[in-house]
């Protein structure tokens, strides 16, 4: 009952947050100087017609209400720059690419990060530990687009092991997955290592050890479950970093995903696409955080449900 109340409260807060975000981004986009139609040579009459077509001739508050109404019906509007295409259509075609890349990157980062973190904690002070720490520092401080360029240049342009760009076959996915996942991998490895170190020296592990349990059982049943708690909190920020990571990685590798559309929409002043994608990302993130919070409340009985 308490959990149910907690969940419904969290959902209400998430909903409110998205509503505020919609409002803020709608009005911020209205504040952007210039217009998406200034670059086009057109007669005054045409311009008025275009403004009327997109509803830009109405007062801003009215545009806002129309936008909210459309949004409530799941309609994010029409792109200003890509003719006759709705933002929903763009998301429908582009999102699968980003989702695929994002899931691969998260999968790669999670498996490698956990593996490195756990082994580093066990090999404390040895070569693998040092390697993990160096990787963690490099992975968190070198921007993903620079990682992207370097591996693109070395493995695709020079060595020709992988295709340079596009996203068609498994071979195409390797480099972008690595570029997008490296930063997350570094974070996860760092967190896992330090929380494993904490757990390794705890009393219940000593008890399990003195009971004569097998090493594997101790690692997976006793240590990892507890060591993973702080790592789970990383999942929210991880999704955020995947989203912003795709902005650059999809550009480096010419992948027709949402991140690439976001960047082009920013360059083109495609207002509806910018707002639409921002809202889409926000909903994705808020939902992810909600799931993480609820999962956390289930997993850790110590958490207070406020």
């Amino acid at each position: 009952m308490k959990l149910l109340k907690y969940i419904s409260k969290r959902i209400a807060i998430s909903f409110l947050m998205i509503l505020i975000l919609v409002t803020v981004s709608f009005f911020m986009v209205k504040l952007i100087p210039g217009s998406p139609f200034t670059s086009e040579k057109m007669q005054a009459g045409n311009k008025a017609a275009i403004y009327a077509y997109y509803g830009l001739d109405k007062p801003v508050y009215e545009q806002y209400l129309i936008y909210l109404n459309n949004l409530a019906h799941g309609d994010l509007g029409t792109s200003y720059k890509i003719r006759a295409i709705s933002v929903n259509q763009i998301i429908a075609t582009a999102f699968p690419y980003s989702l695929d890349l994002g899931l691969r990157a998260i999968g790669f980062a999670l498996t490698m990060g956990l593996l490195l973190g756990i082994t580093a904690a066990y090999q404390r002070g040895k070569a693998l530990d040092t390697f993990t720490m160096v990787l963690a520092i490099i992975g968190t401080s070198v921007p993903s687009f620079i990682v992207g360029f370097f591996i693109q240049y070395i493995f695709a342009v020079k060595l020709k092991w992988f295709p340079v760009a596009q996203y068609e076959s498994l071979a195409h996915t390797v480099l972008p997955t690595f570029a997008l996942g490296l930063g997350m991998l570094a974070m996860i490895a760092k967190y896992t290592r330090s929380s494993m170190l904490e757990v390794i020296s705890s009393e219940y592990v000593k008890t399990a050890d003195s009971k004569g349990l097998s090493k594997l059982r101790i690692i997976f049943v006793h240590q990892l479950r507890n060591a993973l708690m702080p790592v789970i909190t990383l999942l929210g920020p991880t999704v955020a970093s995947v989203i912003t990571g795709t902005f650059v990685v999809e550009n480096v590798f010419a992948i027709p995903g949402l991140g690439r559309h976001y960047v082009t929409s920013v360059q083109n002043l495609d207002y509806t696409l910018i707002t639409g994608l921002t809202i889409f990302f926000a909903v994705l993130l808020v939902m992810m955080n909600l799931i993480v919070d609820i999962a956390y409340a289930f997993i850790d009985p110590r958490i207070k449900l406020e």
Partner: protein
Amino acid sequence: MQNDAVGQMLDAELFTLVGVKPDEADHIKRKSQTYFQDAARRFRQNTPSVIGMIFLAALVVFAFFGPLLVKYNYNTADLAAANSDPSAAHWFGTDELGRDMWARVWTGGRISILIGIIAALLQATIGIILGSLAGFVGGKVDEFIMRVVEFLMAFPYLVWVTLMMMVTGSGILPMIMALTLTGWLSMARLVRGQILALKNEDYVLAALSLGAGTRRIILRHMIPNMLGVIIVNMTFAIPNAIFSEAFLSFIGIGIKSPETSWGLLVSIGMKQIYTYPLRLFLPSIFISLTMLSLQLIGDGLRDALDPKLRH
């Protein structure tokens, strides 16, 4: 019986103090170290951080004095010398307009580093003001500020910066403004938390009961105790701002030609990766080195200034 035997062997002389002068026993031989001397000692023992410091110092020196070493301006085109490889005349070669890459790379570095430092300082200022306001005043003010922070933090920082940058327009000052307005969140949170924690410290209570005023408590007790975490937070804010500059320029809404910055050079270099990879690699390597050094310094400072946080 045995006790008597032992008693005969021991006499009072065995228990006199040798070589200790009682009136000097509480004298501390070594000079006492201040918090910052102690921190500096700890920092020096941290080899990676010292290496980071040396690298950063070298990068800053080159960024500020490098362009003075050559006779070219970062923006003087010389079409006769366009696209040349590194040589005695042009140490890093020239770009497609014959502009000297050495001058461009280091002038760009100056802009990137300056943006990083100024943005971090301004973010810290706003963060400290709003954070201490929330912590001190509490109540409705605290509630409001923290709700705003929570809301802004729920969505990626880069999305906010991008939106903000589109409103303010491209250029160095607009970028600093956009970075400042979006980057104060973590500092505000940190300062508020510190103030709430320090409020309950015994030494603050002691100062209060000795009659110290709010001003004295803040200046003499709270700020010195928060300084460590504030400095550490700022050290990490600089590479963040440098990264944001690179990101924004990379996607085309940050610094624009004829101005130059590392991010802009990377985004120009990206288009020439097949023909002139050096133009992409130079700024990329320097951005990475700068961020790496700052990260190492930040880690070292955190360990040195805040021993409680060390793991």
